[in-house]
């Protein structure tokens, strides 16, 4: 009896650890490949291709990166600006709407909730949105074009609303009301300080979306000074294919050299860098955010 149990356990452990180990390795390997590429000498990549460990160690890619930081710094600046502005403004508007929606004294609050929710059920699609942005709002090459499309998300309103109404005792708000506090005052002095964890969590989700966005840049921006980091990287990575086509069509174009292979990998690392650095500290917020969303969304 006891023997059968332990055999069962051993078999389970073999399967579970093998599966998790393989999955873990799959998730980490691409990062190692990129790191190795960034630390390899250009010659060894051209000769042997990318590898798990650098065949010939070199920091030249990072040296090139430091030598020409103008564009890259600018792209970083754009990304940081849209991330900070978008998250701050978006979170403020989202939290206010969430607060109002959970106020029982607010008439038609269900109608307002439906007004928000309906936008997730039926969408006009990308084409009308694109034409609205370009033709009617004049957003081509406007920094706002990188901020507005991601500013407010209905699910975040729902999550914050349910968290406020389940974690803040109604009596607290009512007693503030009796003391003569206005609605905005209650929101600012009581609701915000007491909802910090959920606001931090939602704020991180928003910030990640802004940090990783390239799609809106592709649609609305071609001016160099407005290109955010991810789109900058995308353009650099896809340049090789473009250049190759050009070279095959125009013979004298051979003089143009595409970015070096190791440089591309170094640039990729620079783009993920901040996320990898922050990851250990913010991971738990995302985990709790997903769970809150699953329960309440």
């Amino acid at each position, binding site marked *: 009896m006891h023997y059968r149990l332990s055999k069962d356990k051993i078999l*389970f452990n073999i399967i579970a650890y093998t599966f998790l180990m393989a999955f873990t390795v799959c998730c980490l390997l691409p990062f190692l490949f990129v790191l190795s590429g960034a630390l390899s000498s250009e010659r060894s990549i051209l000769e042997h291709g990318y590898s798990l460990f650098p065949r010939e160690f070199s920091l030249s890619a990072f040296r090139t990166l430091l030598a020409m930081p103008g564009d890259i710094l600018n792209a970083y600046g754009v990304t940081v600006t849209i991330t900070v502005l978008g998250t701050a403004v978006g979170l403020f508007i989202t939290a206010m709407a969430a607060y109002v929606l959970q106020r029982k004294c607010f008439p038609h609050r269900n109608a307002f909730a439906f007004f928000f929710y309906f936008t997730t059920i039926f969408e006009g699609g990308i084409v*009308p949105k694109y034409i609205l942005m370009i033709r009617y709002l004049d957003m081509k090459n406007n920094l706002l074009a990188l901020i507005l499309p991601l500013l407010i998300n209905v699910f975040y309103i729902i999550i914050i609303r349910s968290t406020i109404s389940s974690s803040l005792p109604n009596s607290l708000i009512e007693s503030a009301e009796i003391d003569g506090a206005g609605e905005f005052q209650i929101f600012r002095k009581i609701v915000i300080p007491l909802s910090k964890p959920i606001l931090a969590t939602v704020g991180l989700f928003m910030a990640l979306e802004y940090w990783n*966005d390239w799609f809106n840049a592709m649609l609305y921006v071609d001016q160099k000074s407005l290109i955010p980091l991810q789109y900058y990287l*995308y353009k650099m990575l896809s340049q090789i294919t473009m250049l190759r086509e050009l070279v095959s069509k125009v013979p004298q174009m051979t003089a143009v050299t595409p970015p070096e292979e190791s440089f591309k990998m170094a640039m990729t690392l620079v783009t993920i860098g901040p996320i990898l650095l922050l*990851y250990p500290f913010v991971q738990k917020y995302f985990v709790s955010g997903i769970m809150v969303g699953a329960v309440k969304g």
Partner: protein
Amino acid sequence: MRRNTKRNQVLLLMILPAVLYFIIFAYIPMTGIVLAFKNYNYIDGIFLSPWNGLKNFKFLFSGGKIFRVAWNTLAYNTVFIAVNQSLQIITAVFLTEIASKHFRKFSQSAIFLPYFISWVIVGGFIYNLFNYEYGTLNSFLSAAGKNPVDMYSNVGAWKYVLVFVNAWKWVGYGSVIYLAAITGIDKEIYEAASIEGAGKFRQIFSITLPLIVPQIVTLILLDVGRIFKGDFQMFYQVTGNNPLLYETTDVIDTFVVRSLLQLQDVGMSSAAGLMQSVINFVILISVNAVVRRTQRDYALF
């Protein structure tokens, strides 16, 4: 009473920014679906451009591409649901059952990491792996004395690549919900089962899985509600928008964006977009109606 009106005015003012936002960026674009029935030109804009009946749809269907693209979208999403949900459940079960706390933490962090990476970076990973001249795959192959593989002329292989990449990106995220569900199961049930002589596998199949069925059903239904929506960013970045691969990797969303940006065909792309929105809407409403009838608690709205 006066104080109440004042209060409501302030509340209305506080919700106003969000309301305006959705009017401008969701409801006005909804009226833009008329574009599907218009011969759009920039000067006349959305509402003054001349009507042209069903011409855009005729053009869309006569190309025949839309059928392939619609089929790709459905087929990919179906496989994604099956593969991802299974892997998420397996991952969550294994993570909760293994004894080593350190490995659990490390492994969970590693598996969750891809969620944080933009699709551009994933595109960079794919480039690093599959690039014909310098890719890691081919350096391994040549080191092993095998011939290099040109992935970009191997159209069929990308189906598997996409399924793999999609699982790689989302399973960590998706398993969090199952982890929470499994952690919530009463430990005494397992203790009782173990005293009765039930082994690990028996416990998983007779306790864990049956008890997380509600979560499984809900998550699958959520996915089914989105089954006609392709993940534009993934398909675009993983394939590098490579025309050679359209046959097996083009979905409605990439088709619409390409028709809009590259062909500048507003009529056809908005016809395709409208078709997608309507089908999405119908699917979502039907899924919700079924859930309401069978398991009220899990209805979305």
